[in-house]
Each structure stands twice: as C-alpha cells, then as structure tokens.
C-alpha cells in the first residue's frame, strides 16, 4: 500500500470546503489543492490501489500505470493554471464545480472498473454544466440544458453498453475492450460523444462559447481529454477510429474559418486537435499512442492558453466576436504575445509544444503506410495554422482597428497565461521530460532538418495563402451569423418532434375532450335529470310516429303503457344486483 489517497478525493472533498474560506485564505486554499494533488500523484506507485468491495464487486479507485499517470499530471497541472486564472472570480459555485469537475476527470483517469468509471463520467457532465450556467445569461442557460441533455443521453448509451458488456464478461473490471458485440459498440459511442467525434460533436461548439470566461478553460481541458484517455485505454488500434479521427481533423477547420465567435473558432479547432489524438489511438502502434498521449498533454496547455487569452479579451472588452474586435495589440500587448505563443503551439511551429507531439502521430501514420490519412493530417495541420494560428490572433489583436482601448487583464490572469506560455515553449524546446513520462519508450527525434524545413514550408506557405487572400479581399468576410452543424438535428429536429407529438397528442386530447368532457357529462347530466324521458323519447320514435302525424302530442303518462315502466324498473334492478354481486363477491 502507498501513502497516498485517490487523486480524485483531494479535489472532490476539497471542493466542499471552499465556501468556508474567505478572501486570501480562500485563494490560498484553492491554489493549494492542485499542489497537494500533485504531491500526492508523485508519491503514487504503479499498480492497483484503493480497492473497495461493493455488493459482490470490487471497485478500483486507483489503476496506476504510465498511461493514467500522464493524464493525472496534466489534469492536475491544468487545474492549477485554471484556478489561478479564475482566482479573482467571486462565485463559489464556479469554484466548487470546477474542482468537482477536475476531480471527476481524475476519477475517470484512475478508475479500474466500470462502476466508478460511470459515476465519475456522469459527475463530469453534471459538474461542468454549472460552468456554463454560471454565465447567467439566457443563451448560457439554454446551451447548458442542451449540453446536459446530450451528455445524459450519451451516459445512458454508455450505461447500456456497460451492462451488456459486464453481463457477457462477468466482471466489472476493464482494460482493453475492442470492438466485438453490441455492448462494446455502445460503450464506444458513449466514449465517442465525450471525445466529440463526428457526428456527436456539436455539444462542444454549442456550449463552450457560452461558458463562463474561466469555466471554458477547464472545459477545454477536461471532458474531451478524459475521453481520449479512456479511448486510448479501451480501444487502441480500432481501425474505425483512424478514419473518424482523420475526418475530425479536417471538417472543423472549414467551420472555424467562417465562425465569428472567437471561442467558437477555438472550439472547432479543439475538435480538430482531438481528431489527431483519436486518429493516433486508431493507428494504435506504440509510436501512435505515444503521439496521441503527448499531443493530449501539449494540447491541454496551449488550448487552455488560447481560451485564456480569448477569455481575457472577453473579460476586458465584453466582446468576443471577430466583427467587434481588432487592433487590441495596442493596449493588450502581453496578452497578444501569449495568444501568439498559444497559436504557434497549436500550429506545431518548431520550438513550440505542438511540434514535438503532433508529428509523432503523423509519422506513425506514415510508418503504417496510411497515405490518405497522412495527406489529410498534413492538410489539417496547414488548416489549423490558418484558422487557429492566424485567424484568432489576427482578428482579435491586429486586423482592422475596432477603436477599442482597454488594458491588460488582472495579474492572476496574466500569470496563469504566462505559466502556460512558458510550458508551451519549454516542451517545444526540451521535449525529453515529456517523452520520459509517455506510456512507451520513445524512439523518435522531432528535430531533423527535413522535418523542420518541411513543417515550416507547410505553415509559412499556408500563411502566404492567408495574406494573399486577405490582400485580394477574397478572404471570407467576418459576418454576424451562425453556421448550422449537426446540432440542427436536435435543436430544430426537437421542434419538429414537439410539433409531431403535440399534433398527435393534441388531436387525441381534443377528441377526448369532446367526448369525455363535453358530450358524455352532458348526456349523463341530461339522463340523470329525467332518466325516463330518454327511453320515452326513444320509445316514441319507434312507436309514436303515426300518433304524431295524426294529432297534437298526447300526454306522456297516457302514451306509455304501464308495463314498459315495469320492464325498465326490473331491468334496472337486475343490473344493480349484478353490479353488486360483482363488486362484493
């Protein structure tokens, strides 16, 4: 046994103590939690820890190996950066849920069985939605509801898959699953939803731009990357993922080019980057898995940095759309530099972190002779520079001067960005420490002359295309508009469903109302008022036609033979007797 506690516990238990502190103590406490978490992590030894018996199952809170440790490190690290960035926020709900969220991501990472995995998986969705709702705008409220609904559906699919899988294998422990049978397919779909694999991705681009400024930083790091971890654990080498991953790298960049909201551009480029990881997991060789994992590590830092710089602009100016921004380098030069460092990293410029990780995945695709995949990934690499590398800094900090004059964000935000920016460059320049913690031994040298020159050519001539298109005026203008994505099917489709169901239901309701509310009570009321009259009328219809024709209506009493009344009375008594015997038998 080791002298540590489950990594998730520090964050989740710690979260509930946050509201009890005030002022500087609260800030110190929140910064201390990730540090404690990190100290705890480095004291953990490989193996299986914290096994708890529950019913007839053993729940494993600590599957510690190289794969889970990498994600443990990076989730803890980004929590520190994220909370430093958010330390000025006076909203306990955000702080508590951010820690619950990070804790559940760690829980997913170290879970060795399906039960704890599923619980943390759901907690991930439930805690993160508060980071959207805390924006407290109508749009955020709506987007949050859609976000949680989509994740609940995904969670149910996962649960169904888990139940089938567990009943087939007889154990709740999991490791490699692979595609075989319905259960594994459902599990894969559940994981794929959180990894934002097409066509299950639009929850991300819908919700992240509506999240709070500081919440988006956590969200950009945790949900998709915990799904990447779990895919790397359970579905490495699944060929389907190669194709879906490659498609994921390509299609979002078209959307990113025409998106107006900067954080939506970043959300699309996030899907593009996760595509590289999913593709690497699909290839499944040691180099590819190393590439996917190291890319997740680097990506979390530079994507957080990009979300932080965009968040700083939103925080200081209240604006985030390309059409409203421009020329901010004049008053926010430090933020601009941090943004450019993040942009260079995501674009995989040599000496920046993306370069040393993404290239491993692309090289792995070449080693496996996947020519089409290789070409798609290179296309996506050029494209990501185009939209995330150039568009994001250009339209925020350069481009046409919007006339906005502001100043740098608060010190804690700058510090958080500074740490992330430093790490982006540090890893890019000196990747050895990162390579050391990867799941497999690394036999890869990123800095070779052809690789550096090739990558620079790819990026710089992509930039040339951008410059020429901007100068010629052919570059698509930034417009105040939104673009449809697959969320159309549930956002508009749900209205269609509502229309159909209300159409059917309302039809039934109207018929029922007519019969049971109007006609039946009216009839009953009329019948109960003068029970005999009904029968008399009926009798008269049959018998009395000729009488009516001959003269004035005779009195009721005289027209009905007394025997008819007797027959009715007897009949009524018989029915009464029958009902009573049935009831009190």
């Amino acid at each position, binding site marked *: 046994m080791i002298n540590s506690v489950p990594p998730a516990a520090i964050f989740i238990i710690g979260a509930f103590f946050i509201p009890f502190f005030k002022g500087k103590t609260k800030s110190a406490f929140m910064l201390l939690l990730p540090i404690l978490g990190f100290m705890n992590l480095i004291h953990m030894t490989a193996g299986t820890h914290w096994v708890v018996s529950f019913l007839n199952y053993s729940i494993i809170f600590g599957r510690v190996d190289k794969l889970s440790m990498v994600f443990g490190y990076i989730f803890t690290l980004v929590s520190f950066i994220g909370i430093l960035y958010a330390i000025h926020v006076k909203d306990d709900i955000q702080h508590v849920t951010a820690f619950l969220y990070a804790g559940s991501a760690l829980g997913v990472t170290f879970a060795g069985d399906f039960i704890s995995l599923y619980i943390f998986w759901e907690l991930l969705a439930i805690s993160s939605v508060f980071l959207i709702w805390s924006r407290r705008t109508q749009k955020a409220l709506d987007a949050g509801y859609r976000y949680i609904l989509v994740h609940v559906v995904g969670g149910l699919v996962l649960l169904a898959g888990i139940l089938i899988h567990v009943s087939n294998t007889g154990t709740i422990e999991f490791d490699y699953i692979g595609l075989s049978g319905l259960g594994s397919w459902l599990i894969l779909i559940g994981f794929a939803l959180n990894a934002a694999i097409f066509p299950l991705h639009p929850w991300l681009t819908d919700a992240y731009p509506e999240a709070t400024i500081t919440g988006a930083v956590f969200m950009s790091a945790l949900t998709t990357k915990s799904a990447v971890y779990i895919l790397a654990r359970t579905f490495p080498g699944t060929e389907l993922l190669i194709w879906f991953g490659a498609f994921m790298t390509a299609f979002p960049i078209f*959307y990113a080019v025409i998106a107006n909201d900067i954080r939506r551009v970043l959300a699309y480029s996030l899907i593009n980057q996760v595509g590289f990881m999913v593709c690497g997991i699909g290839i499944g060789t040691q180099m590819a898995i190393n590439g996917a994992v190291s890319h997740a590590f680097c990506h979390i830092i530079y994507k957080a940095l990009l979300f932080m710089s965009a968040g700083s602009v939103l925080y200081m100016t209240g604006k985030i759309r390309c059409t409203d921004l421009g020329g901010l380098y*004049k008053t926010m030069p430090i933020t601009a530099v941090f943004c450019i460092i993040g942009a260079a990293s995501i674009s995989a410029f040599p000496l920046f972190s993306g370069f040393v990780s993404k290239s491993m995945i692309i090289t792995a695709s070449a080693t496996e*002779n996947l020519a089409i995949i290789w070409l798609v990934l290179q296309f996506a690499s050029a494209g990501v520079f185009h939209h995330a590398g150039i568009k994001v800094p250009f339209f925020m900090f350069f481009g046409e001067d919007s006339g906005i004059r502001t*100043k740098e964000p608060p010190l804690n935000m700058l510090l958080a960005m500074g740490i992330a920016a430093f790490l982006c460059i540090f890893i890019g320049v000196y990747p050895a420490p990162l390579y050391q913690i990867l799941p497999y031994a690394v036999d890869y040298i990123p800095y070779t002359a*052809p690789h550096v020159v090739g990558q620079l050519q790819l990026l*710089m001539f992509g930039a040339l295309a951008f410059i020429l298109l901007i100068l010629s005026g052919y570059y698509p203008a930034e417009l105040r*508009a939104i673009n*449809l994505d697959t969320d159309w099917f549930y956002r508009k489709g749900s209205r269609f469903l509502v229309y159909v169901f209300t159409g059917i239901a309302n039809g039934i309701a109207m018929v029922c109302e007519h019969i049971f509310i109007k006609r039946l009570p009216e009839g009953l009321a009329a019948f109960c008022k003068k029970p005999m009259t009904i029968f008399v009328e009926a009798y008269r219809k049959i018998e009395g036609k000729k009488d009516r024709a001959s003269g004035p209506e005779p009195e009721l009493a005289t027209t009905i033979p007394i025997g008819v009344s007797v027959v009715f009375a007897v009949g009524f008594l018989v029915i009464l007797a029958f009902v009573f015997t049935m009831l009190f038998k």
Partner: protein
Amino acid sequence: MKRELKIFDKPRNVQRFLYSFYIVLLALLVVDLFIPKHGHFPWEGAPQFFAVYGFISCVSLIFVAKLLRRIVRRDEDYYDK
C-alpha cells in the same frame, strides 16, 4: 492619453513585415534544395512538396469554406425563431 503601441498603424511597417515574410519564404525554398530527404512516401522527397501542399491546402480550405458558408449560414437568432 495612455501609452499605446502603434507599429502597424504605419503602412511602412506593414510593408516591412510583409517583405521580411517573403524573404523567409524564399529562404525556405532555397534551404529545401540542400537538405537530404528520407520520407516514407515518395512525394515527401519531391522538391518544395510541403510548400506547394501547404499553399494549395489553405487556398482550397478557403474556397470550400466559402461554399460551405452558402449552405450553413443563418442569422444569429435562427434558433430563437
């Protein structure tokens, strides 16, 4: 008035930036001729492959994105209607 950076307000500075960018491009094309190549695919060894591929990728990206916009573009309040 607060201190402001204005380097890109002057057209001359933008021109300087662009010229240095073009020089870098040229340098990359020249360097490419002198480095040994050992790619996995035959086209990786072709001269200036990455320059051509990067340029074509980004131009076609913009063309397709413009087409895509025609199909998917809606007003900002589309989903509220």
